[in-house]
């Protein structure tokens, strides 16, 4: 056979005359994406992701998998126009792809913990392995397993069957089991020293997580902390009845043991400048938190007897709870307000929370609100303070009742004062817990950009600030947020810092594209038909009397049999092909936006009738490879194109299930499926 010579992106290549452009491009090393193409099948040209430009054409892109080479042909297989076409192709395919790459719990978790994975290990009684699995993403499972507001559980698909999996407590169970069996958390060994020095300001969850992951890489990490102990807001913002000193010491202590040095009692800007830290280290991470209290902006808030939530909980963290008298008002609706109220209850006070909206809008976790109510905290909804005065030695709180008006930018309905509803109450103390702010003053000598709210500006993926080599993560970068996000961002920061120290491009932790089926409530009920209800295991708690009078830990943890039973409730969401999926690979490469064309989408349709192969028609991208493999390789017509237009599907015709066809499960279709439209059944895949 004779040969032809052509030019691909101006590079000459010689191939046999019957070759396709795709073959020629691959010969030159170009990774042209394809879905419908398979080596053992005839060219088909349905997906059009392999489309390229041929000089002298009508301006159309042609499918490279089927277009034959010609002598002297000039082809472009990579440029902006082609990238845009591939991105559009994927945007369209993903808009009609009904599947989750990752289980929603994992994609929702700000620390990206492999929840499905650790639940599977717990089910098998492998808590020690589970601890290591979590630690790949978050070094403090015991802490998070006690205090996390559990965004994962809000996303848990099991909710559509009965109740979400008790994910959060499972982390605690794993950590408790590890410590009980091994004496302390088992951290992996750090890599050999790299000679690079990193300074971290702040020993809170973000700072300690970043320090941990950098130490793992072999870097020399020194943390500077103004308090006498580590933990940051975990310790000084969360009361001990939720998160014990013991747990904090155990999980943060081992990070120090592995070689992270923490210099306690060092206040940046006072004892040492940030600038000098920058000078003495190869990289600097700012994890200074959000330590300032937001003002209520009412007259008299500076009067004696008025405290901020941060002050109050901070003192509790130091084991120095001030006596605020018998009648305490807490203003605010977040978890800090609840923590303040529940702490105050334990001092024997009568505690009332004032919140300007209703329970439905309250930012505090539902279960926290329940716990507070259970312990005797009163909550006055639709009330707001207007002034604080002191008359004849009495602290007076003036309030006004509110009603809900139009929704604001956050989507929550804004409270509007009800005219003439003003009233005044007497208080022994008032705790204001309406928000926190970043106090960036201590690092301002670095000259990095700060937002108008005081947060340190850093890239959302690399966490690098306006100055290379200086990174910011945790509450100081996000504004006051939950610990699990500080942990996740601390890890991502470490990744970027490691890139920086290694002289690589600072791009941040690589993230794979993640397709999602959409919000829980939008899912097709058919998905949940085959599951039997099973009650969520309740977390055992100590008796009420002890709860109300001491700071003993309220929750006592699962016993192993309960944990296993709970873990067995997991639906194992996420895709079996997530690690071997060209659709996902290309979607990552071309930076796809699955929501660009949100509209009608194929419905969930699982054909699990056959023992060897299963079809997830909802994930199919209509490349037709399976239909052709069955016909061309196997000589059968098990699968066919059904319907027309947008409703076209690859499936067994006439509404049949696979089991009612001639399919013998040979798997020729599975081999050519670029995504998860057809897969081997798990059992068959293992055998």
């Amino acid at each position, binding site marked *: 056979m004779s040969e032809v010579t052509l030019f691909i992106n101006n590079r000459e290549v010689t191939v046999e005359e019957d070759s396709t452009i795709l073959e020629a491009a691959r010969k030159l090393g170009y990774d042209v994406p394809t879905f419908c193409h398979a080596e053992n099948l005839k060219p088909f040209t349905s997906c059009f992701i392999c489309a390229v430009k041929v000089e002298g054409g009508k301006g159309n892109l042609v499918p490279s998998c089927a277009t034959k080479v010609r002598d002297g042909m000039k082809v472009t297989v990579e440029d902006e126009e082609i990238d845009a076409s591939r991105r559009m192709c994927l945007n369209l395919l993903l808009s009609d792809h009904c599947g989750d790459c990752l289980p929603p719990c994992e994609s929702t978790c700000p620390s990206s913990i492999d929840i499905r994975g650790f639940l599977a290990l717990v089910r098998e009684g492998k808590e020690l392995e589970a601890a290591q699995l979590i630690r790949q993403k978050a070094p403090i499972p015991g802490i998070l397993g006690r205090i996390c507001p559990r965004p994962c559980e809000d996303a848990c698909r099991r909710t559509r069957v009965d109740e979400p999996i008790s994910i959060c407590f499972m982390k605690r169970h794993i950590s408790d089991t590890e410590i009980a069996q091994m004496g302390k958390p088992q951290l992996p060994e750090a890599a050999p020293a790299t000679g690079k020095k990193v300074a971290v300001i702040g020993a809170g969850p973000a700072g300690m997580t970043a320090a941990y992951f950098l130490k793992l890489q072999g870097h020399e990490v020194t943390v500077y902390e103004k308090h006498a102990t580590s933990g940051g807001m975990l310790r000084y913002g969360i009361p001990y009845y939720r998160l014990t000193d013991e747990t904090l010491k155990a999980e943060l202590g081992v990070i120090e043991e592995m070689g992270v040095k923490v210099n306690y009692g060092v206040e940046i800007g006072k004892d040492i400048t940030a600038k000098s830290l920058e000078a003495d280290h190869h990289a600097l991470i700012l994890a200074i938190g959000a330590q300032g209290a937001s003002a209520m902006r009412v007259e008299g808030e500076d009067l004696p007897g008025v405290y901020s939530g941060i002050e109050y909980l901070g003192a509790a963290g130091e084991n120095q709870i001030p006596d605020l008298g018998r009648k305490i008002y807490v203003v605010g609706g977040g978890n800090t307000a609840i923590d303040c109220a529940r702490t105050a209850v334990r001092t024997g006070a009568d505690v009332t929370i004032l919140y300007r909206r209703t329970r439905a809008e309250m930012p505090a976790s539902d279960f926290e609100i329940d716990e507070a109510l259970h312990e005797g905290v009163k909550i006055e909804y639709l009330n707001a303070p207007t002034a604080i005065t002191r008359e004849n030695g009495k602290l007076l709180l003036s309030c006004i009742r509110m009603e809900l008006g139009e929704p604001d930018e956050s989507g929550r309905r804004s409270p509007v004062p009800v005219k003439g509803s003003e009233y005044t109450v007497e208080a022994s103390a008032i705790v204001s817990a309406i928000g926190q702010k970043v106090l960036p003053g201590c690092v301002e000598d670095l000259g990095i950009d700060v937002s108008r709210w005081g947060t340190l500006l850093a890239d959302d993926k690399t966490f690098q600030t306006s100055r290379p080599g200086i990174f910011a993560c945790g509450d100081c970068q996000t504004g006051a947020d939950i610990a699990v996000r500080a942990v996740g961002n601390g890890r991502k920061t470490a990744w970027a810092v490691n890139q920086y120290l290694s002289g690589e491009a600072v791009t941040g932790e690589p993230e794979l594209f993640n397709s999602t089926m959409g919000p829980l409530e939008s899912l097709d009920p058919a998905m949940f038909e085959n599951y039997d209800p099973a009650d969520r295991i309740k977390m055992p708690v100590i008796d009420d009397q002890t709860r109300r009078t001491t700071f003993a830990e309220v929750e006592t943890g699962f016993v192993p049999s309960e944990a296993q039973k709970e873990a067995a409730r997991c639906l194992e969401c996420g895709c079996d092909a997530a690690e071997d999926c060209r659709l996902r690979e290309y979607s990552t490469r071309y930076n796809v936006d699955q929501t660009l064309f949100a509209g009608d989408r194929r419905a969930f349709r699982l054909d699990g009738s056959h023992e060897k192969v299963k079809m997830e028609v909802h994930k199919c991208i209509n490349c037709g490879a399976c239909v052709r493999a069955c016909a061309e390789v196997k000589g059968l017509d098990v699968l066919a*194109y059904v319907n027309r237009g947008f409703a076209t599907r690859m499936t067994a015709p006439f509404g049949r299930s696979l089991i009612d066809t001639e399919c013998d499960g040979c798997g020729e279709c599975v081999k050519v499926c670029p995504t998860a439209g057809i897969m081997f059944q798990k059992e068959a895949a293992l055998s």
Partner: protein
Amino acid sequence: MGKPKLLVGLGSCGIAAGAQVVFNHIKEKDKGVLADLDVTSCVGMCYAEPLVEVVSGEERVLFGQVDTAFADRILKGIADGRLPEENRVREDSDGKEYLARQVKVALRNCGVINPESLEEYRAVGGYQALEKCLKELTPQGVLDIIKESGLAGRGGGFFPTGMKWSFLAKAPGDDKYLVCNADEGDPGAFMDRAMLEGDPHGLVEGMLIASYATGARHGYVYCRAEYPLAIKRLRKAIEEAKGQNLLGDNILGTGHSFHLKVKEGAGAFVCGEETALMASIEGRRGMPTLRPPFPAEAGIKGMPTNINNVETYENVAFIISRGAEEFNKYSCGRSTGTKVFALAGKIKRVGLVEIPMGMTIGEVVNGLGGGSSSGLPVKAVQMGGPAGGCIPRSLFDTTIDADSINATGAIMGSGGMVVMDETTCMVDVAKYFLAFTQKESCGKCTFCRIGTKRMLEILTRITDGKGEEKDLDLLEDLANHVKKTSLCGLGQLAPNPVLTTLKYFREEYLAHINEKRCPAKACKPLITIRIKPEKCTGCTACARVCAVKAISGERKEIHTIDPDVCTRCGLCLETCKFDAIEVV
């Protein structure tokens, strides 16, 4: 002089207008006493159906809007020797304007002869062109004449027919196929149907000549099953031709053989695309495949194949009989001859016209067609169906030839011409066509299958008043991608209705988006129907026709419409005799 002949136009259009009733009435009443009753097909004056023609010798008088009463008057007129003066649609001003500038080539026999009679076809010179080819010309000689005529594919591609035939002629072997694409599917198009119903032998003869020129021995007419009358007449024509050895083996003793079959399509629009059409003929799902290989290399059953549409073949016998010059004396740019158009939509004179290349769009729409049916200004004309585009009034000086029409962003297409006036919303038009292509996509290629759906969704958002300005950029970007990266014509051309309306009527899109207003007052979510208090007489007529009881008011008092209940169906508007209801 013998009895006059009475011809009743019994095309599908005529039958729909009531011509069959008239035919039956005359048959019953006259029983062939006064006149010989006969059938013809569509003469093209659809606006005047039902049509009855009185033919006595050379004299032909065509009556329109003929009901049974008027048929009686015609019969009486024949008896009295004085035909009625009214309803003479060829002689009135409408008829004169409509017919004066038409040139009938492809439509030469439509409405003139009985399409079910080979005898009548022969009487007007039928099959003489074939005999001339078989007996006087070489295949190459035929090819030369066709090439010289400049005939080009009337299905819309306008590829030179002579060149296409010569590809097949040069292809090796003698197992070659000839196909007639009669899968007419554009909304508002009825050219092929009219020709199949009106002159089936013209098609058969054209294909026979092509078979001689190219050496093809097998032929298929692929016709949609929704054209039962066309299929019936075509089958009859084939049988009759076979009976006279015009089809089959050793035709007229010349040694040439050609076998022709009718293949009925199941109504998939995409089967009008030639590779999908061939797949369908072979019994496979109608899905386009990549070209090359072109049909001339590997078509039906992998054999060399030539495909032309109905109108292309209908021109062939004329060109052979009358000479290439008689055809290409009409020319404009690279286009020669005539083109058949189906005038539809909001046009005064709906019908089928055949015009020489080079007339302007305005001359056809306003001259032949008489402007809009509503009296409102014509806003645009849609040419080329779902693959075509909308040409605005400002471009009505554009001459009708393939290159000039393509330059507007629309396409000449197969001949659909849908006229729009000021009450037509151009966003709604784009939406209509996208809804069509979206459903008719074969579902194979990503850009066409999902892209047309997403375009439709964006357009729906806009006509629902939920569009944002960024939607226009997204729509345009997507449309360009679909155009550039689809396998077949259906996908490549599907964005044309969107792109041309965006190009010429962007301000209408913006009014929907920014002002939440439909300038044509056609998009229901953006209009309100209300009663003008100063004109309402309280007659209650509107309230009585309202199906959803949205209108309230006491007798002789001013009525009101509840906009939350009203479905904007417009029935009240049509009912009100006092012009007291308006759309705002």
